[in-house]
């Protein structure tokens, strides 16, 4: 058995004429939190569904925990937990009933299930609302319950499809604490998101756009790729400077952040500050190199499409 929890080679999925996923290669090590970062429609959900065996790939090979997917998908069921993008538990059952139901579906013995449910209610701060209907809970509470249920049968791999899309920042931080606890216990977690702050927490990241893998690596590596290409400009009439900068061939993108204009230069650019100072010809501007952020990585990897 390999060290990788999940491997995919040239993974492709068509829906009619639409290519949802296009030749994606993945290698996800065991015990890591692996992030899928990409805009809506970039193929994140489709890839997760294929990895779980819910969708049959049009082409490509998948191996999860050494099992061929989708042919051996049934054998995988007990080893994975899946948290769908849309809340998929029963609104008209209480928290405890939902957990009991899924426990029995996973074949837990009654006494084991009871013990495990108590443990999870406690761990995910749900004990007080165990008899509340799932439909009557807040987004954050539902998310905790969904995660508790996805881990009910102690799976080796967790698939979380945009788990925090309906959750406020406070609850999101708590949620990630739980993910690190799980990861610490050896669980491999694949999580999709379109929040940069979440992506930054992952051990490794894959950046997806229109079904293609644009970039991958640890957040540090990815940001390191952009060293020397991100420049901060401070000064007056930044809107005009922005227009001017966007005309320059070396400039890939600009984004205003308050009183600063962040400029991303194309790959291969050298002496970014000097280049901009010369081209913009405005001596009143302060132009400095700055530390690349994950957002810069995202913009550099996607958008204009010329990538790394």
């Amino acid at each position, binding site marked *: 058995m390999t060290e990788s929890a999940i491997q995919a080679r040239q993974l492709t999925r068509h829906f009619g004429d639409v290519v949802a996923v296009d030749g994606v290669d993945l290698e996800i090590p065991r015990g890591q939190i692996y992030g899928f970062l990409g805009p809506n429609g970039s193929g994140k959900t489709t890839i997760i*569904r294929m990895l*779980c*065996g*819910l*969708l*049959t790939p049009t082409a490509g090979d998948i191996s999860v925990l050494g099992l061929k997917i*989708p042919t051996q*998908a*049934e054998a995988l*069921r*007990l080893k*994975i937990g*899946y948290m*769908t993008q*849309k*809340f*998929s*538990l*029963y*609104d*008209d*059952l209480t928290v405890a*009933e939902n957990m*009991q*139901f*899924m426990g*029995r*579906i*996973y*074949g837990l013995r009654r006494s084991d299930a009871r013990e495990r449910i108590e443990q999870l209610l406690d761990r995910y701060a749900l004990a007080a609302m165990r008899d509340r209907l799932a439909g009557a809970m807040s987004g954050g509470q539902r998310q905790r319950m969904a995660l508790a249920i996805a881990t009910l049968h102690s799976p080796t791999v967790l698939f979380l499809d945009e788990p925090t899309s309906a959750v406020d920042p406070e609850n999101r931080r708590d949620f990630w604490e739980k993910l690190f606890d799980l990861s610490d216990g050896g669980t491999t977690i694949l999580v999709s998101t379109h929040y940069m702050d979440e992506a930054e927490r992952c051990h490794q990241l894959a950046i997806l756009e229109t079904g293609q893998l644009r970039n991958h690596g640890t957040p540090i590596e990815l940001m390191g790729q952009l060293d020397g290409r991100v420049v901060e400009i401070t000064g007056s009439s930044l809107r005009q400077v922005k227009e001017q900068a966007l005309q320059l061939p070396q400039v890939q993108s600009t984004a205003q952040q308050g009183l600063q204009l962040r400029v991303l230069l194309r790959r291969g650019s050298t002496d970014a500050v000097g280049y901009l100072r010369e081209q913009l010809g405005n001596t009143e501007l302060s132009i400095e190199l700055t530390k690349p952020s994950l957002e810069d990585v995202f913009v550099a990897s996607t958008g204009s499409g010329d990538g790394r």
Partner: protein
Amino acid sequence: MNSMRRIGAITTKELKQLSRDRVTFGMVVMIPLIQLLLFGFAINSVVRDIPIAVVDLSGNVAARIITEQVRVTQVVTITAFYDTPAEAEAAIVAGKVRAALVFPENLMQRVTSGQPVGQWLVDGSDTMVGSALLALRSMPLLLGAGAPQDAYRMPDPSFEVALFFNPERRSAVNIVPGLAAIILTMTMIMFTSIALVREREQGNLELLITTPVHSLELMVGKLIPYIFVGIIQVTIILGLGRLIFQVPFQGDFASLAIVTLAFIAASLTLGLLISTIAKTQMQAMQMTFFILIPSILLSGFMFPYEAMPVPAQYISEALPATHFIRLIRGVVLRGANAAQLLPDILWLLAFTTIMLAIATKRFRKSLD
């Protein structure tokens, strides 16, 4: 063992959801109750108390005797007397009466020569009313002491007439068992077809199919609660049918249970098949009605099977309701036992097996 646990989990969950959905839960009881009262009282193929007028041009005592005999059949209620046929026709056109009985001036002469004694003017727009009055055409008449017994010819006795004139002949006896078939067709197919589609619509299915649950376990687990629903409904219909409409129960309970369970199983699996085809609850409802309408019209519930044209009979044979109507009328009204009704029972069981097989095959644990 795990399989039983999973089926049990789904059944328990389904029952809990059902008990929390007050509207649906109420429907389980209210549909049979209301429909029974509605159909039991309203659907009456024995036409009674049709308002008619009498036009007596003869002024003869025989006219009064015959009128009285027509009146006691209870098929008609005499609401008016007119002097001329023209006035009676006007009353029919105006909808005041549905028919008029006209005695000619030469009534006594007709009586003695065995000719028809009078003429019915009938509003034929309602065929049921029309045929009820047409049946009166050949009713036997007795003129009693007022006329010589051998002075007229008795019309040949006709059994249709006899049936109609039997005051104990009540539609409810025929309607109630048939109604059990219609109500079960409606509720069983609708509940199951919606049950699975709802899980799909609300996204529950995406989670369920990543679990170890097998398609067949999911299907069976979802069907079990509705078997109980079906049994409750049949009990309500037959119980109240007996209490309110005095529908006799000639058969034995074991046979009733066998034929009812066979039909419930057939309807549930049909609903399940629909749920694997329908994408939304709306579509599931539409497909349910697609089955329900022919089940009402072509199953023998409304019109006798024998009266249908042959192509309609083929359709009729393909409907589970047709077979169940034969079965339940056999058990409830004629006291037949399950062994005597084996072909229809076997048909339902074969139907169930085929539907379950197709539904399980169609329902793949995949989102493809």
